């Protein structure tokens, strides 16, 4: 996996931050990440787009990404420079979308209550660790399953499929 990532936490402690909030449907006609990024979290935090710095993290409560299957939600966050999402738990489709994009959606129960908005975090993917540099506390997350690591290595599910096909494996 990748090196240590460092950035600031943008904390949304509420449960059920849903895909309508992450990227409203009125922007679904766009698939350009930079464009989507400008509208990320618009209806619940209009300042999000301008305050996020590349490499920052979104920290959220349980069931993050619930609602629609729109992958635009992921693209909007990634386009805004969010390096990883760290949440108490995820809704299934959002988690799938993250895995398929080699994007880190880390599950750390209790994280939303433990981290202050604006805190500096260090994410160590290979160690399964989120270190809160402000409090000094470490939070552990379960390792990504092997197939997710494989997809991440190739970058994207389609790249993984293409590589597998080229290697002569149909399954």
């Amino acid at each position: 996996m990748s090196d240590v990532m460092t950035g600031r936490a943008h904390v949304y402690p509420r449960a059920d931050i849903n895909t309508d909030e992450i990227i409203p449907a009125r922007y679904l006609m766009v698939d350009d990440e930079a464009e989507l990024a400008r509208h990320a979290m618009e209806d619940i935090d209009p300042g999000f787009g301008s305050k996020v710095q590349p490499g920052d993290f979104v920290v959220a409560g349980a069931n993050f990404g619930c609602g629609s299957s729109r992958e635009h939600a992921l693209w909007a966050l990634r386009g805004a420079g969010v390096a990883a999402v760290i949440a108490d738990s995820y809704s299934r489709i959002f988690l799938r979308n993250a895995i398929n994009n080699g994007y880190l959606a880390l599950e750390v129960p209790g994280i939303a209550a433990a981290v202050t908005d604006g805190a500096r975090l260090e994410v160590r993917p290979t160690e399964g660790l989120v270190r809160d540099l402000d409090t000094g506390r470490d939070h552990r997350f379960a390792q990504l399953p092997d197939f997710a690591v494989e997809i991440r290595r190739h970058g994207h599910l389609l790249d993984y499929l293409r590589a597998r096909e080229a290697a002569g494996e149909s399954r």
Partner: protein
Amino acid sequence: MPGMTITEKVLAAHSGNDRVELGQLIEAELDLVLCHEITTPAAISMLERRGMDRVFDPAKIVAVPDHFVPNKDIQAAALASRLRDWVKRHGIDRYFEVGRNGIAHVLIAEEGFVVPGSTIVAGDSHTCNAGAFGCFATGVGSTDLAAAIYAGRLWFRVPGSMRITLTGELQAGVYPKDVILEVIRRIGVDGANSLAMEWVGPALEEWSMEDRMTLTNMAIEAGAKTGVIAADETTRAYLAERGVTGYPEYRSDPDAVYLSEEEVDLDSLEPVVAFPHLPSNGRPVGEGKGIRIDQAYIGSCTNARLSDLREAAAVMRGRKVAPGVRMIVVPATSRIWRQAMREGLWDIFSEAGAVVANASCGACLGGYMGVVGEGEVCLSSTNRNFVGRMGHPKSEVYLASPATVAASAITGEITDPRPFVEAARRVRAA
């Protein structure tokens, strides 16, 4: 070894396994890949960029523009064109153009494309709707859709199942929508996270396919991977009418293991309204008394089928939409539109002062055809009421059955439909 659930059986059959275990990673062959104009263009772009512009089997694709059509603006036109061009390029026959289209999930059932024992994916979270036919149907994002289009198979973790047993009988004015809102109220919007919500019970035998689809349609609102109801005589009859025969009918084994159980006694169920801003925020309809509404919306893949329109029309017959209220009726498919017209339903709604629109997803997701403004309240037969779902972030959406929406359109406030439904039945019986 314990028996398998219906979901496990379908996935085992599609992954070359005799058995599958909970949590097992599999690759399942896909029988149907459903594509609409919002999430497919991005999937097409992903494939083109990688020199992977291929369709594994055009005969297993169905393409339907349904969200922002007839084109709501220039960007929507571009999306619809992208889908149309791709369909033409790859020789996909099952493409349903505007005027012959409808909300994808309702259309595929109506056309007889949903077959028991099959696997279905679409780039849309309400794909679970099809599970009412005893298949495995789940919603995915654009990347998964692209992989499905390209390879005709997708990775899955075998889900656990939640069993919901329905006993008793729905009372007049209480509907499948009330049942699903009640269950989501109990378990929460992640109460079935990653599970298959499997519905069983003697009550279901009396339910039409349309009734059943309302239950499986909203499985996603509890965080479920899918909703499923085993096929039976009703399913067979529905499919036979459409010339569809010769499919496997899986059922859960009596000793299959369920991760959780719920039971709903329909005899005592009252109409439910989900208050803003979560589908799980269900309350008895009586708690809505006094809450004035600006818009009454009947639409979406959840509740704009023919039976929904008939129930709403029965309430509206001879009555008027309250002053200050806009009522909008958006049927789910072009076929439903025509049948409703033949049955005189459009006269009823129009005479009452409601708008009758073309088949579309419409305002369910704040697209068009009744976007809700700042400070406005909409009571809707749709499936989600998150902040900003149907329009302005400072608008409010309440979810209910079509009959509840119709009764509320008449009074101008959230209203129990039962007196209206009972009155309508007395009139018909007279």
